[in-house]
Structure formats: C-alpha cells, structure tokens
C-alpha cells in the first residue's frame, strides 16, 4: 500500500517536471518568433540620422531604427545611507607631532553634533609610552575599523559598516543594549543616558533644525535617549565635498582626511600622498594586534615638548554645566 503511494507520487512528479520543461521551452520559442515577426514588419522610413558611436565614429542610421533608451541608472552610483558613497574609502591621518591640545577639534565637533554634556565623541588623551618618555597628546575618535568589533556584536544591525569605510549608527533602530560599547576597544562610543538636552543648541539653528529627523549620516542631529552615539566621520560634510569639522577646525593641521583609493589626504592646506606619508613618517594604527583594521592612522609624536604642560583644563569650559559656576 505504502509502496504504491510512493510510486504514484513519483510518477506525478515526473510528469509534472516534463510538462514544465515543455512549457518553458515552448514559451521561449514563441517569444523569439514573435520578436522576429515584429522586426520584419517595420519598414524603412527613408529618413536617416547621423549618430556618433562611443569610439568617435560618425554613422548614419535609418531614423525608424532609432529608439530612445532610458538613462542607465547604475545602482553603484546612487547614494544609499547604508551603502555609502560609491567607490570611496575614507581614511584619516592624525599627526601626533603637531597636536598641542588646542581642543578646537573637540569644540567644533561638539557644536556641530550638538553634544551638550561631557561625553564628547572626540577626546584628546594625555599619553605616555612608558615612565621614561615625555608625554604627548593623542586625539581619538571612532576608528571606523574595517573589521569593526561593534558591528559584529550588534543584535539588530543598528550599527553598520558602509562600503566607503564609515561605521554608522541607526539611532531609530538601536535597542540600547550597549554591547557595541563593551566590544569597542577604543572607548569611542557614548550613550544617551537621559533625554539629550539639545534644545538650546538646536534652537539657534532655527525652527527647521528642531524637527530634523534622525539619520545615520548625521549623528547627533538629534541624539535619541537610550541609544548609542559616536563620531560619524561627518558624511554630511563629505557629501558636500567638505572636510569633517575636526579637520577644518584644527589650527595646527593635525588632522588629514582623504580617500584611500585616491591615495591622498589633506588637512585643508597641505595635501599628501597617503601611502608615502605613512611610509616616510612611520604611520601606525591603534591596537593593531586586535585585528580591527582601523581607518584612522597615526603619525608618531616626534619632537615632542619636554616641558609638556598639563595645559588647558578645557573640559570644564566645554561643559555647560560647569560654565555657570
């Protein structure tokens, strides 16, 4: 009984397959035939047109043969917030030898992204390799890693890596688990522990700014309570062919921004060949051993100041809560 059942089913499948094949072949044949028929039916109109081919030759064709073609829209050339700018690979070079902790970068970043509390995305560390060496200043921001630990652990694809090298956050999707913050070895991420107090800063920008919708390519505009924020490499500036805020704000030309595919970086005044600059000045990346492949390179702090000043305790100045004191 069971055997029979199996047999009949196999037969049915067999027949079905054959029938399907015949239909497929038949329909292909029919369409071919139909297209041939329509081609034959068009007669020459007598009018001719002169056209230029892609290799520069002039040719003459009958005007009835000319058909308008829809402009090709290459999906690789359309900007998509999750895919990034096509055929670009953004990198940054930070020349530690030039940094004097002027904090203009921090200020510019904070105001451009409406960062109102002390969780600045851009931090300038007072660093030392060992007890014997002199101190130096080291600005850090999101390293936009090519193997980002944060993206790997995100449960909802809220933080993602774009083809142009940027690691961004979709604050409308983030669930606030903070796993990405635990995963990031560079402490680059900050959390909106309370309702962000951006109203004053945004009101200065006018009514329109107050209703700006959160988008991954303009982080912090606005920030959303219970979600993670970090440096976004300013794609809103890049799109307008402008440099990120920290780069243009730096009075000492510490930051160089550019495109690895073009092999060039610029701080707005000087432009260097990326590969040559890194080679000549022994560029390196932070915590290379972790395998995160950052997009931010550092040039070593040569000629560092021996009389290193603890300097401006500018953090208090930047912090609006302390301003009133």
């Amino acid at each position: 009984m069971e055997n029979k059942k199996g047999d009949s089913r196999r037969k049915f499948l067999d027949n079905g397959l054959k029938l399907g094949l015949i239909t497929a072949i038949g329909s292909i044949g029919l369409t071919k035939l139909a297209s041939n028929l329509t081609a034959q039916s068009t007669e020459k109109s007598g009018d001719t047109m002169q056209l230029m081919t892609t290799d520069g030759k002039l040719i003459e064709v009958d005007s009835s043969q000319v058909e308008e073609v829809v402009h090709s829209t290459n999906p690789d050339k359309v900007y998509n917030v999750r895919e990034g700018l096509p055929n670009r690979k953004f990198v940054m070079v930070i020349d530690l030898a030039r940094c004097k902790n002027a904090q203009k970068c921090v200020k510019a970043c904070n105001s451009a992204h409406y960062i109102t509390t002390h969780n600045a995305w851009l931090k300038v560390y007072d660093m030392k390799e060992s007890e014997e060496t002199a101190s130096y200043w080291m600005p850090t921001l999101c390293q936009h890693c090519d193997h980002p630990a944060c993206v790997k652990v995100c449960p909802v694809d809220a933080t993602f890596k774009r083809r142009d090298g940027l690691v961004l956050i979709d604050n409308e999707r983030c669930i606030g688990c903070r796993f990405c913050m635990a995963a990031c070895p560079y402490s680059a991420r900050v959390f909106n522990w309370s309702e962000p107090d951006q109203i004053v800063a945004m009101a200065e920008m006018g009514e329109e700014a107050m209703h700006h919708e959160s988008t991954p390519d303009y982080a912090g505009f606005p920030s959303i309570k219970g979600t993670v924020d970090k440096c976004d490499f300013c794609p809103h500036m890049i799109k307008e062919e402008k440099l990120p805020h920290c780069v243009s704000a730096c009075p000492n030309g510490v930051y160089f921004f550019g495109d690895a595919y073009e092999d060039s970086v610029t701080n707005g005044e000087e432009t260097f060949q990326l590969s040559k600059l890194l080679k000549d000045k022994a560029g390196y990346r932070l915590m290379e051993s972790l395998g995160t492949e950052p997009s931010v390179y550092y040039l070593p702090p040569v000629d560092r100041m021996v009389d290193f000043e603890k300097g401006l305790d500018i953090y208090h100045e930047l912090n609006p809560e302390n301003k009133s004191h």
Partner: protein
Amino acid sequence: MQKYDQLVKDLAPKKFGIKGTIWIAFLVIIILAALYAYYQQLTKGLIVTDMRDYALWGVYISNFVFFVAVSLIGSLISAVLTISKQKWSIPLTRIAEIVAIASIIMAGLTIIIDMGRPDRLWHIFVYGRAQSPIVWDVLVISTYLFISALLIYYPLLPDFAILKKYYKDAGSKESKWYGKLSLNWTGSPKQKEILHKSIRTLAVLIIPVAFAVHTVTSWLFSTTYRPGWDSTNFGPYFVAGAFVAGTAAVIMITYVLRSTHNLKEYLPDEIFDKLGKLLVLLCLIYIYFNINEYLIPAYKNTSEEKEHLYSLFFGNYAILFWSVIFISFIFPVIVLIFPKGRKPLPMFFIGFIVLVGSWWKRYIIVTPTLLHPFLPIQDVDKAWHQYFPTVVEWTITFGTLASALLIITILVRYLPIVPIQETAEENNLIETAKKSE
C-alpha cells in the same frame, strides 16, 4: 491503602497560612517598589542608574547572569542526576524545576530592564542578526524555558490525576482544574510508556541546551577584547559556577519548604547529606576554574590585565573579591567535609552564604572590567571612574529577586512539591492502592 492516602494527603498542595500570606505581601511590596523605580527609569532614562559611558553595564547584567546561573540547577538535578539513576534526588526534581523556571523567566525580564530602549525589543525579532551573541542568547534562553516548562509539566500529569481524585473526594473546586491539566491521564501502560519516553528524551535534550544557555551568556563577555573577559575559559567557568549557585538555591528552598509543609518524612536529612557532598564537589570544581581564571593571567601580568587584577587582589574590589572566594567557596567546602556540617540547619546557612557569594561573584565579573578600558579614562566626571548601584538599581534588583521568589511561591502553592506518583512507586504503594480499590 491507608499509607497511600496519607501520602497523597501529605503531598497535596496546601493553602497559605498566615505566614504564607505575610510572605506574599512582603514580596508584593518589594515588587511594587521595584515597579515604581522602573517607571522612574523608563521616564528619565538610564541616567537614574550609576552606569555611565565607562561602567556601561552594571548590576542589571550581573543579576541577569546570576538568574541564568541559578536556572541551570533544573537540568543538573532533574536531568543529569536522573539519567545517572541517582534515586536520592527524585524528591528534589520538582523543586529544582520550579527554581529553574522562575529564574529563567526572571533572567529574560532582567535583560529587558537593562535595555536603553525596551520599547524596541521587537527589533531583535525583526532585524536580528545571526552574528550577535545576544541573538544566540535570546534563542537559547527561550528554548531552555520551553524545554524546562515541558520537563516540569510531563511528570506532573500523573500527579494532577491523583490530585483530581483527591480534591473530588474532598469536595473541592480545584479538582476540575487539576482534571483538565492532567490531560485524561489514566495511568494505562501505554500512557506510562509514552510519558516515560518523553521525559527521558527531554532530560537528555535539556543538558546540551542548559550548557548552551550559560556558555552563550559567558560569551556576551568573552567575545569582547576587555581584560578580565578576554578568556577562552569563560564557558566552563560560568557553567561550573552556575551549578554551585543553583545547588545553594535548591538547598535553601528545600529546607524552607520542608519545615513549612511538614515534609521531613519525604525530604529526609539524608537528602541534605547528599546535597552537601554534591556542593563540595561543585565548589572544588569552581575553585579550580577560578585558579585558572585569575592566577594564570596574574602570572603573565600583561599590561592590560595588570590594572584589572590589581583592583581585584589589592584595590577597590579586594575585600569583596577575597570574601567571595574564601567565605562563599572555600569555607563551605571545609564545613561540608564533616558529616555534622551536612545536617539540614547548617546546610541552610551554608546555602545562604554560597548563594549570596554567587550573586556578588557575578557582580565582580561584570563591573570591574569595564573600569579598566584600553585607553585611559580622562577628562570625565570623577564619578565616572567608579560604579556602585544607585537606590533605583538596588530597588529594581531586589524586585527581580522578589519576583523570582513569588513565582516559586505561587508554583509551590498549586503543585505538589514532592512528586506524588514517583514517591508512591518508590515505596511500592501504587500496587497496594490498586489492589484495594
């Protein structure tokens, strides 16, 4: 016959007395306070906690790990010990499963409490990515909850049928409910065979799932680069610690139920003796893992680990760290080696010490690590260098612990704490009962 009736009467669930009512009221008050605290957290944001950008996980996460840990006891007692034919643990299977169910439910809820956007929980199901250990955790915990629920329900079928009859004779309305829940259990050989097979299948299935639950939970930490978490040892280390915590919980709850429900006859001193020996073994295994986890990194003393280990051994966390190791894991082993230490009352206190230590142990695993990031903590508020839970965090945490106890209390109210059918079979009472019918 009389013996059988007495057994059913002894083991049938009982209504709460005054003590029980006070106990429930106490739990409900804590839970209400916690709900109010959580409402504060929802409206103001996680700013009401002491967590900040460096100490980005705190007591909620360590409490979550604690709940997951305790839940593993269900699989140890009702699966590992049952499959290895340990008869002494039969009266404990129900208690172990009740503890497991209550803690795994609370583990799931606790992790939601930690979320910055609990309103977007559904994103995990819509946008979930297979790469993320959180997604694995969600899958594994829900699977564990499901299997645990079946594992507690199947062995209850014969008991429900017994209770249906018992309450019918007593003229109680509850009979109807137990009847429905018993799914027409008649005790026919065929039913028995199906039940036996299903329980055995589940008991085997739950072991890998239980290991997975806590191993994946440990991966939430060990998949990061952080000093103190960056360990290949974390999975077995967590599983070993989980069995310690769960056994301590079962010891305490068994002791309490035994006196509140007059079950000394069914939960004899011998059970505590065996549990004590089991706890010694589990503690020794856990101490072994601790040696691996702390002394080997300390031997190498890499620059990343150095700062972290210093804070544990000699720094801010030293008192807590050494208290947990010595008082909660080494001292119990010494006490429990002596037969007098394995008597019920000393066992209750040992269970308490071990359970409290286990809770703090998770706290020590989760919070100090985050205060030692790779790049130094500079230019931030002084308070960000430290972490200690705020009143809101404590209230919510105690609320979750009270909720777990409330779930246990409610289950204990309606389910027979000691399996009736199995105990009867064990004492050959079924045959005699049948004969006399």
